[in-house]
């Protein structure tokens, strides 16, 4: 039965959480590998996101087991310079710095120099100069980055950016522009959405824009690049010698022309690039503000995103119940030809991850001409996913109603549907109240998956804030408290339902 399956799922989640805590404790206690450790190991482990795309690091489409990208070559050269081999470590792009001292010695993945990063991590000297490029469809009325200051024909311009990138920071900072900024986890997703007219424009590092130019022929760069900066290699704060060795190696590669040769090979060596590399000034580290200031600044944002979490839950769950009920009734009492389809619906939705379903709704449907807004896709995805679980609960609930009830209804001359509507379903609803309420709490927490399709809810807001301020632990506590403040009343409600039902069944047995 479903209850058991769901119980297993919760148990598994719980164990995973415990394991993650232990892992965190153990690794936090360990110190980061210094230069000597790297040499002794014979390996420089560098973190990057192969999903992030070219020209930095990407999976070679010709041989999918091989990684390509100018940073792959750079890592190899750098490791050779340190007298070791380079080994790639995959990580999610906006969380790459968290790998430092645990799974990676350094991060080389188009990480822009910012004051916050200079404060929290060790930043190498620059190895690459980028600028931001505005990209739009060829038929777009946008003709320059300045045109973003005035609203477009459909209101504010919808501008896609990579979450956590310099482009996102820059676009969110620019209050003078009439733009709505939408964060994505991957470049290609972002450009696909621009092609599919969900977005009006994308702002990204110029090298990424030119790398993707061939694949997205109907898009073009608008105006000249603006607001540039440099990429830096991150290392853990307690590895001064590793960081110095990397700087030294980069310096050598710049003076003897090997870095320029590398960029020539990748067609990335503009004049500006070389100038910036030579003279780039060091970025001064930011100051750490007080905790009270941090919370005062973050709380309104977190609260607003908590509102989104609530909206997602209360909009999707009633829908999940309605669809689930319809599917359950259809499977038990519907026409025979329909039943296998409904069973398939349930199995597909229960047997595939929610994340994948959201991706399909948001990124694949536009390819067949049905572009759903992110919020709609998120609500629909959650509703469909949970409808599969609810339908199983309702199926069990309907079966638990004594057969005599159906017969009594039929014997009074009711049709099958009247019997269901007035006699069976109302009783099933009462029977399944406790498991359904506890599923609501589960859905409430699953809303965090929606960040994968650009919806900023509480968890996403937390991770953006945590990464931009570096206050990972403090904000985690605040966020967890917000979740608790919302789910606690739900737990109380579900327990109240259970008690009420218990009392009722005691009474009817008396």
């Amino acid at each position, binding site marked *: 039965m479903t209850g058991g399956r769901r119980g297993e799922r919760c148990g598994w989640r719980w164990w995973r959480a415990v394991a993650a805590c232990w892992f965190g404790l153990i690794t936090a206690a360990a110190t980061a590998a210094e230069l000597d450790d790297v040499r002794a190991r014979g390996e420089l482990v560098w973190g990057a996101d192969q999903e992030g795309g070219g020209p930095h690091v990407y999976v070679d489409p010709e041989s999918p087991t091989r990684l390509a990208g100018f940073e792959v070559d750079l890592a190899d050269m750098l490791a050779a310079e340190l007298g070791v081999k380079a080994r790639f470590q995959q990580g999610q792009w906006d969380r790459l710095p968290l790998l430092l001292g645990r799974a990676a010695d350094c991060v080389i993945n188009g990480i822009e120099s910012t004051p916050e990063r200079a404060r929290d991590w060790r930043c190498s000297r620059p190895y690459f100069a980028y600028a931001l490029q505005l990209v739009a469809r060829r038929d777009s009325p946008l003709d320059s980055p300045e045109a973003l200051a005035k609203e477009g024909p459909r209101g504010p311009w919808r501008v896609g950016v990579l979450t956590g990138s310099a482009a996102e920071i820059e676009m969110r900072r620019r209050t003078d522009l009439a733009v709505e900024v939408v964060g994505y986890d991957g470049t290609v997703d972002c450009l696909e959405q621009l092609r599919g007219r969900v977005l009006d424009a994308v702002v990204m590092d110029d090298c990424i824009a030119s790398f993707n130019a061939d694949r997205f022929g109907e898009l073009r760069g608008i105006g000249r690049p603006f607001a540039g900066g440099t990429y830096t290699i991150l290392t853990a704060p307690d590895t001064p010698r590793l960081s110095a060795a990397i700087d030294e190696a980069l310096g050598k590669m710049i003076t003897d022309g090997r870095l320029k040769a590398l960029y020539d090979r990748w067609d990335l060596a503009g004049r500006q690039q070389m100038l910036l590399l030579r003279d780039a000034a060091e970025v001064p580290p930011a100051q750490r503000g007080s905790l009270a200031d941090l919370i005062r600044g973050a709380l309104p944002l977190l609260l607003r995103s908590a509102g989104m979490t609530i909206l997602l839950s209360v909009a999707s769950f009633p829908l999940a119940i309605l669809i689930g009920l319809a599917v359950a009734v259809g499977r038990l009492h519907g026409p025979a030809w329909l039943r296998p389809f409904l069973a398939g619906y349930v199995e597909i939705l229960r047997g595939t991850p929610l994340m994948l379903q959201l991706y399909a709704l948001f990124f694949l449907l536009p390819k067949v001409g049905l572009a759903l807004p992110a919020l709609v896709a998120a609500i629909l995805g959650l509703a469909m996913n949970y409808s599969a679980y609810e339908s199983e609960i309702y199926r069990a609930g309907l079966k638990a109603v*004594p057969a*005599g*009830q159906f*017969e*009594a*209804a*039929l*014997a*009074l*001359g*009711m*049709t*099958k549907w*009247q019997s269901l509507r*007035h*006699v069976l379903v*109302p*009783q099933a609803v*009462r029977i399944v109240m406790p498991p359904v309420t506890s599923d609501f709490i589960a859905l409430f927490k699953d809303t965090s998956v929606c960040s994968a399709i650009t919806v900023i809810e509480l968890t996403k807001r937390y991770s953006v804030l945590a990464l931009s301020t570096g206050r990972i632990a403090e904000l985690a506590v605040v966020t967890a408290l917000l979740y608790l403040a919302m789910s606690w009343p739900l737990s109380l409600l579900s327990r109240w339902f259970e008690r009420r039902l218990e009392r*009722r069944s005691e*009474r*009817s047995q008396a």
Partner: protein
Amino acid sequence: MIEVDSLAAVRAGNRILDAVTLAVAEGTVTTLVGPSGGGKSTLLRCLNGLETFAAGRVMIAGHQLVAGDHPPRALERVRRDVGMVFQGFNLFPHLSAIDNVTLAPRIVRGVPPSEARGRGLKLLDRVGLARFADARPATLSGGQQQRVAIARSLAMEPRVMLFDEPTSALDPQMSAEVLDVIVELARGGQTMVVVTHDHGFARRAATQVVELVAGRVHRAGPPAEILTAAGR
């Protein structure tokens, strides 16, 4: 009012009704008696189409049922004219007594709610339960529940009432309350078929007694003939 002709029913390879033929005249009471497993419930449930039969024919309240499946519409028409009261009451637990009584008239016959309630209250009064109109079934005694179930069936103004051991789940005192209601109905001219092991009731109310043994009509006739002193 009811004519059963050569009825045969087969379940799991066993012939559990075999050549059953009987007639029930309008305004009379027929009791079905016989040993356990004799086929009494099955016969009763064939009369309102809750179960199908393999051969034979049933005429009831002007409707005809033949062997095999029937379209749902046809069965609904039969059941609107044929009420049934079950051994286990089968009241709707989520509805109050009065809502149990008025549900079918409202949604099947389309009677306006206020009118249905007025008639429902009269029926509850007739079975002595006007005071319990708003009580949930779970708060009522077995005898009270069965009387609500009878009122619920009567609310559809059926031409025939079928009772399947209406008092077997009740203690003697509660049985008496329910039987009094049924006897009262019989006096009012309601056509009914009652499955019962209670020969006292059969003697008191029945026009005809039919004894089913192993799926066949063993004996049939007036109570005085069938229920000899040797009978239970």
